[in-house]
């Protein structure tokens, strides 16, 4: 079994087992090459949107509401406009009134058209209601205070119970009623009634999910400039530059070739930067109004108020089991709180609900997912996209079932693990399944049986426990969105290669992986491939960097384009070598005969001009429209619980991931470690809290929203398997972006149960919740 092992305790050492005897020189894939953006980032030359400074640039700021639900009766901007240095003020009275999607995916079932740039209504505390452009941030801020607003307050709903009560105040006039964003998502297979009738054991549980947020390092920011031809250029920290371009053009009423969106580098997004935000419209409008460049940057507080969180919510889950562990039926009712706007709520609800058809196979399912408006900040897309929530409950209930049936949880999960050919959540048969491999390998790695045995009969203050959690996640958003990955590859006349891609660089190392794929396919050195990205006027159209699909989908498109270039290159070489192109191949930068006969040429010699022969012009496009592939993981976790304070420490994590082909082991392990850090935070401490009496945000900032830091992180021994490559992915590769955040949560919850015998059906599992549960007061 091929596996890369990365152990953070051993300073990132990579062990690669069973790699078919590949040597250092044998290609680029699977090697942790120096990241393509390493030097520019290390030296501070990499450009982020916030680095853009333009002559005459103004600063824009947003005034945010201090009520949760109200009609704006009057808004007076005269005093703000009179303040020296203020150049423009926008309100709902002078911006275009265009109803738009929160996230502009074309032909997408994921999102809802329910937003205006500014409305005459306020739907949550902290929503933007006016914007100012001034010669300095300070003056802009001062002007915000001078804007006078008179509200007619409306009754508000802050919780799911309030929003779904009969006669509840409605957050929107649209939708099917009852504060629903969309009609309930219903998935039904087989017959649950007969499934439950067959069961020897039936478990039911109510689960409750908190509101973690993405906390990307770089706050949302954009800079806008209109040129003399009335063309808009916008630098923005966005995962979806072409989507931003599209919706800006639509709302501003200009054609696509008059909007150019630039994203060089980003300080993270985690899915949450695939919406179109108020400030992006406002920045463009303020720049148009003032005829000057305008910069708008969120404060950290605004990344909470104006950003997107994961959906909080609830789930009722009922499953039937036979004595041998086989699952006979599964019924679930999921209710997600999308906040004041739909954003990705419909997509998250759909993906989360359908995810419950799988992971652990079950022929009889009856699932319902609802997405509900409340007068709270907006929940949207976020790494794990609805699956984090539902698999938390599903996996915990499997752990409960194992105990009730007297089985080991690993054994029970293996018995029910999804298999090749099973119907995936997307409705397609699964090609290759890695879940069993992950479970077996992890159990072996941590010595599962004995370590679990060692946690029996503890009575000290500090108690340890081991838990396991599983997950699977799709690469690409299919079938919610029919996606398309594009790449253009050019070969220069010295044999070097340029890849043009629209995929955003969130900081994941995606461009490095894409360059590796091109190098591998072409047979040239990684260092000979450079990447051009992040300019909608230059690079091929891209749907955006999300849904764990960049390496999988754009990687495949890049591979196709590179394969095309290789054919063109061999044709060139064939002329010069006077041989049939079909007999030639590219090996380590040289064009050689497949049978080793005759002379060879360097790639450079094949394309560079010689007297009488011009340089070869080699360019190719690749387009890939994938369906879906699934990656798998099992996380094994050891925790220690302080039974006097309720504090939970994660002592070690052994994540085992199967994702087809590891392109760059260190970058892939970085994704996994980062997902685990984020997941530990979400499971134990992170929760963006809204006061349910008035809708105010109580911890919109890092003083009281606590993520784990380096010192809080346990050692992680990451194992990456390549046992179920996907024929659709480049060299068999599947996605790894979202997977790592999913399994860690239930693994921790199950480990906590193993330590102290208390089940938590909620996250975050705060010390206070632990203490209350131990004291029996919860």
């Amino acid at each position, binding site marked *: 079994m091929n596996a890369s092992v990365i152990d953070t305790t051993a300073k990132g050492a990579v062990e690669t087992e069973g790699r078919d005897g590949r040597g250092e020189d044998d290609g680029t894939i699977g090697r942790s090459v120096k990241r393509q953006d390493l030097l520019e980032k290390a030296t501070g030359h990499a450009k982020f949107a916030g680095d853009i400074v333009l002559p005459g640039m103004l600063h824009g700021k947003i005034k945010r509401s201090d009520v949760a639900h109200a009609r704006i009766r009057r808004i007076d901007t005269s005093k703000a406009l009179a303040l020296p240095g203020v150049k423009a003020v926008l309100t709902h009275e002078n911006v275009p009134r265009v109803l738009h999607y929160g996230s502009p995916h074309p032909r997408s079932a994921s999102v809802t058209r329910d937003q205006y740039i500014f409305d005459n209504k306020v739907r949550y505390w902290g929503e933007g209601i006016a914007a100012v452009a001034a010669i300095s941030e*300070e003056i802009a*801020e001062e002007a915000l205070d001078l804007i006078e607003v008179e509200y007619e307050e409306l009754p508000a709903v802050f919780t799911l119970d309030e929003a779904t009560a009969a006669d509840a105040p409605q957050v929107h006039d649209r939708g099917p009623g009852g504060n629903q964003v969309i009609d309930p998502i219903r998935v039904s297979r087989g017959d649950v009634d007969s499934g439950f009738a067959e069961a020897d054991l039936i478990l039911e549980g109510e689960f409750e999910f908190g509101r973690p947020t993405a906390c990307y390092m770089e706050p949302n920011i954009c800079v806008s400039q209109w040129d003399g031809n009335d063309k808009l250029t916008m630098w923005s920290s966005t995962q979806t530059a072409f989507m931003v371009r599209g919706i800006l053009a639509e709302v501003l009423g200009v054609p696509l070739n008059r909007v150019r969106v630039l994203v060089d580098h980003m300080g993270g997004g985690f899915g949450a930067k695939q919406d179109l935000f108020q400030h992006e419209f406002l920045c463009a409008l303020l720049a148009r109004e003032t005829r000057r460049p305008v910069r708008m940057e969120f404060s950290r507080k605004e990344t909470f108020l104006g950003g997107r969180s994961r959906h909080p919510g609830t789930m009722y889950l009922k499953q039937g089991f036979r004595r041998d562990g086989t699952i006979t039926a599964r019924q679930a009712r999921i209710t997600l709180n999308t906040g004041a706007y739909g954003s990705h709520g419909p997509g998250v609800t759909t993906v989360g609900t359908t995810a419950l058809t799988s992971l652990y196979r079950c022929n009889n399912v009856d699932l319902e997912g609802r997405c509900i408006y409340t007068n709270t900040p907006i929940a949207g897309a976020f790494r794990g996209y609805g699956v984090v929530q539902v698999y938390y409950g599903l996996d915990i209930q499997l752990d409960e079932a194992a105990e009730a049936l007297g089985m080991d949880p690993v054994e029970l999960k293996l018995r029910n693990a999804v298999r090749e050919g099973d119907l995936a959540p997307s409705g397609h048969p699964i090609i290759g399944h890695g879940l069993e491999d992950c479970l077996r390998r992890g159990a072996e790695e941590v010595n599962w049986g004995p370590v679990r045995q060692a946690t029996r009969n503890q009575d000290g203050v500090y108690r340890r426990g081991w838990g396991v959690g599983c997950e699977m996640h799709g690469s690409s958003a299919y079938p919610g969105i029919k996606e398309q990955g594009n790449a253009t590859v050019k070969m220069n006349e010295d044999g070097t290669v340029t890849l043009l891609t629209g995929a955003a660089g969130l900081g994941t190392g995606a461009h490095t992986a894409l360059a590796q794929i091109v190098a591998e396919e072409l047979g040239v050195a990684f260092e000979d491939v450079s990447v051009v990205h992040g300019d909608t006027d230059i690079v091929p159209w891209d749907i955006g960097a999300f849904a764990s699909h960049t390496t999988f989908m754009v990687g495949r498109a890049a591979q196709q384009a590179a394969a095309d270039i290789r054919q063109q290159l061999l044709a060139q070489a064939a002329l010069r070598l006077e041989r049939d192109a079909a007999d030639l191949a590219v090996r380590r930068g040289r064009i050689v005969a497949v049978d080793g006969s005759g002379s060879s040429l360097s790639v450079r010699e094949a394309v560079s001009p010689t007297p009488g022969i011009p340089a070869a012009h080699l360019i190719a496009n690749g387009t890939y429209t994938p369906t879906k592939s699934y990656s798998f993981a099992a996380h094994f976790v050891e925790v220690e619980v302080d039974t*006097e*304070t*309720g504090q939970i420490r994660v002592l070690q994590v052994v994540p085992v991931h199967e994702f087809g082909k590891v392109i760059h082991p260190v970058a892939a392990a970085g994704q996994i470690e980062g997902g685990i850090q984020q997941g530990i935070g979400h499971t134990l*401490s992170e929760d963006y*809290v809204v006061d349910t009496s008035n809708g105010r945000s*109580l*911890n919109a900032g*890092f*003083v*009281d929203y*606590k993520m*784990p*830091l380096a*010192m*809080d992180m346990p050692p992680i021994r990451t194992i990456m398997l390549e046992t179920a490559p996907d024929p659709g992915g480049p060299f068999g590769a599947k996605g790894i972006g979202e997977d790592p955040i999913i399994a860690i949560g239930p693994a921790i919850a199950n480990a906590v149960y193993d330590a102290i015998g208390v089940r938590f059906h909620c996250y975050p599992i705060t*010390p*206070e919740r632990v*203490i*209350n549960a131990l004291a029996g007061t919860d």
Partner: protein
Amino acid sequence: MKRVDYHEPTTLEEAVQLMTRYPDTASFFAGGTDLLVELREQTRRADHVVNLKRIPDLGMLTFDPRAGVHCGALVTVRTLENAPFIRAHYAGLWQAARELASIPVRERATLAGNVCRASPSADTLPPLIADQAVAHVYGPAGRRDVTLEDFFLGPGRTVLSHEEVLTGFSIPAPEPGTGKSYIKHGRRKAMELATVGVAVTLTLDGDSVRDLRIVLGAVAPTPIRAPEAEQVLIGKRPEPALIEQAAEAAIAGSRPISDVRSSADYRRRMVGVQTRRALQQALEAAR
């Protein structure tokens, strides 16, 4: 950040004069780790900032086995953390210093600033009170000394008048047989505000407790002594049952609030647990 007028006095007199000249709108500036953030976020208004760093001799940190520590107003938390005699003789303060914010913040933040900010959850306050530290103050009426125990009036409020400068602290030398501890109860290991803080300074006379001060942070508008808890142990052998009883008394003396960090009830429970643990740590160090 809004414009401010910046002043660099070179004597204490000059600093006090500046503060007198701008009765409502001037702020002292030493480390700036609170001040600059508050100005930027507009939670504090100041038109004048009076930098103390040009005044000589405010940056001294000295230790004498008999006289104890003298710590000038400009001594940074990081300097304290790295001073061997702080670690050896003022273990509670040392522990508080090394858990305050982050290393970059501690490189700039001063002990005096942490004290003058008077946050109920400030880490260095409980051990300073437990160690009977005295604040040296200079003002229009000359010099005066105030014990730290009497220094705090409420969140952000101290006995200092607007014009007065805190010039430094004296902390008595520990008597033989003294053990100290500080436990910060928070949600993570660094960059954290205490949910509950407990400082203990305990002196043994043979097998029994001769002297004891227990100070609680983040459970009242100011750090507070827990005199009932102290009395449970003073003059007695610190048996586990008595320590438990002292912890219970500390709970009874605390007045925590509920907020987004914790409920009052959880804070009370943690006062009990961490007082017991702090007592055990101090006792171990004293033996």
